[in-house]
């Protein structure tokens, strides 16, 4: 009876119930996909069988244990965090720049990360042995993360005067910065040998194949913290949709929202790109689709972007590791191949709404 009352009293145009219902469906979808992803892989190791053996205290073949607990599980968790991080970052950037096509690339995050990775791949060998031994194969992710933050902080510094950040300056300076970073990357790439070039190409296409517990331990908390902080931006981003002045008029601390948005995006995207390379389209397609279903209210958009982003990446990863098994396709190719046409379809079928 109470539920019925609530339904009768809902105002027309209030789509929060859609967001709430969608979040439950997306959570269920994510859980199903996660279980499915754990259970399937090129090696044919059966997850239930291994788990039963473990519960019953029976011996497990070392290969099976490695496949389940050191390959599939960290890879699944990495996929969930990276997908959520990329999709939420995309939604935040679109809210901040007031443009449904914005992505963290506008903050120089991607260019910075790729410069970091390129430097590490090409010049990592020149590091003193003591340092390279201490960092080991984490050098590329670390350099990518550092690069993304360096680029973002530079841009934020350029665009901020007297405590106010100009989003327009950030956008334009971002283009200039990206050009400079591209030139610098080109300079470094010029020195690269054949193998380094192939490594660079593969890094740019993204992959979850290098997932491991140690990478997850390093990057997971960063992405998780960013994801947990993101909902605090929701009301502010809703207000920003009316413009900065109007947002301030309804009581939003606009500068705090901008700073928060930049930091959260840089943390989530920087860490995601660092451990998985360049994975495109998730950050644009996922929030766009969700806006079509349940509206642009960021209070549900951010949560649902995290859930759908994770699911999309898990599916893309399952495709990437099964389509050419036993080899695998870089996941960035899969997301772009699914994401590109899908995005076009969404755009074309909603053309009237967009133009109107």
């Amino acid at each position, binding site marked *: 009876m109470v539920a019925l009352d609530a339904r009768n009293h809902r105002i027309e145009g209030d789509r929060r119930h859609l967001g709430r219902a969608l979040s439950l469906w997306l959570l269920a979808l994510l859980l199903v996909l996660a279980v499915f992803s754990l259970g399937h*892989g*090129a*090696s*044919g190791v059966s997850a239930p069988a291994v788990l039963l053996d*473990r519960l019953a205290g029976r011996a497990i073949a*070392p*290969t099976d*244990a*490695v*496949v389940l*607990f*050191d*390959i*599939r599980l960290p890879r699944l968790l990495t996929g969930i965090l990276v997908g959520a991080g990329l999709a939420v970052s995309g939604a935040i950037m679109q809210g901040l720049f007031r443009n449904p096509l914005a992505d963290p690339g506008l903050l120089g995050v991607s260019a910075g990360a790729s410069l970091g990775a390129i430097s590490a791949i090409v010049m990592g060998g020149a590091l003193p042995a003591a340092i390279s*031994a*201490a960092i*080991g*194969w*984490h050098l590329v992710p670390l350099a990518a993360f550092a690069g993304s933050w360096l680029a973002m902080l530079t841009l934020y510094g350029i665009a901020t005067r007297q405590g106010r950040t100009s989003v327009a300056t950030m956008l334009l300076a971002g283009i200039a910065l990206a050009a400079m970073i591209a030139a610098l990357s080109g300079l470094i790439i*010029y020195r*690269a*040998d*054949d*193998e380094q070039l*192939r*490594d660079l190409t*593969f890094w740019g296409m993204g*992959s979850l*194949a*290098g*997932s*491991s*517990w*140690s*990478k997850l*331990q*390093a990057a997971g908390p960063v992405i998780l913290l960013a994801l947990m902080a993101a909902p605090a931006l929701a009301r502010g981003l809703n207000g920003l949709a009316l413009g900065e002045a109007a947002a301030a008029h309804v009581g939003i601390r606009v500068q705090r929202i901008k700073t928060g948005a930049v930091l959260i995006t840089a943390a989530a995207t920087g860490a995601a790109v660092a451990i998985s390379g360049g994975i495109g389209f998730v950050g644009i397609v996922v929030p766009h689709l969700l806006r079509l279903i349940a509206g642009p209210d960021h209070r549900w958009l951010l949560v649902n972007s995290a859930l759908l982003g994770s699911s999309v990446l898990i599916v893309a990863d399952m495709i990437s*590791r099964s389509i*050419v*098994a*036993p*080899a*695998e396709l*870089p996941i960035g190719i899969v997301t772009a191949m699914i994401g590109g046409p899908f995005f076009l379809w969404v755009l074309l079928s909603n053309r009237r709404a967009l133009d109107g």
Partner: protein
Amino acid sequence: MTARACHSAGCGPRAALMALIAATAAALLSGPAAADPHPDASRVLSIGGSVTEIVYALGQQDRLVARDTTSNYPAEAQALPDIGYMRQLSAEGVLSVKPDLILAEDGAGPPETIALLKQAGIPFETIPPGTGPGGLADKITAVAEALGVPDTATAPVAALQADLDRLADISADPAQKKRVLFVLFATGGRITASGTGTEADAIIRMAGAENAVQGFEGYKPLTDEAITSAAPDIILTMRRGGAGAEIDAKAEDLLALPAISTTPAARNGAVISMDGLYLLGFGPRTGKAALDLHDAIYGTS
């Protein structure tokens, strides 16, 4: 539960670091040590074109269950399942072919995958790169030893040695060495050529000729003037086969390029094109390849 905790502790950053330091130290101390023998291995995964070629040369191909993308010689090898590019291997993909021995050329990766494969208890033997005449024999021997059949190396090594000896006999007088320009790509009229320190540079020197480009390491785009001043007597290119064939440089196209048209090579129409893996693979056929190249440069001796 204890097993699980133990599990994650075993692959934390500290543990990974310790393993890395230990591995580095071991590598430094032992040098290019012979691989451990695995005579009972019946499901061998071969990673790297030259390693696969050596397995065939040793007559051990029946023990292979899979290969990587770079292993496309001999043709029968292409019937084996392909586990992907050797520097971007996926751990589960590799495990799915259920290997009981992995033979990998130097540079297989990424390191995370290699670490997981070792953790899964699969014997993993890295074969030294073997550029240079002595290294090649070592490479063949290393593969034979890893497979636990050292005797099978005798014949291929002897054949290789015979080729190398013959090369040494017929090699031209150092004063009359011809200058060879190796062209990797000539797409859009832009020449990417080999400097020093490459497989191309090594095979040119083995064939008793001289690399016309000495100023840099690796494969780099060259300016027109640099090509003119390199004044090569011979242009050497490779055939990629399959999908790569489209970017192969054609002799007539090459000679028509303004930069090349001024060189001695253009005056003599001297363009040599050889199969890529044969020419640059540094496997058991390399002695033959160097001989063929020598003959192509200096005429049949």
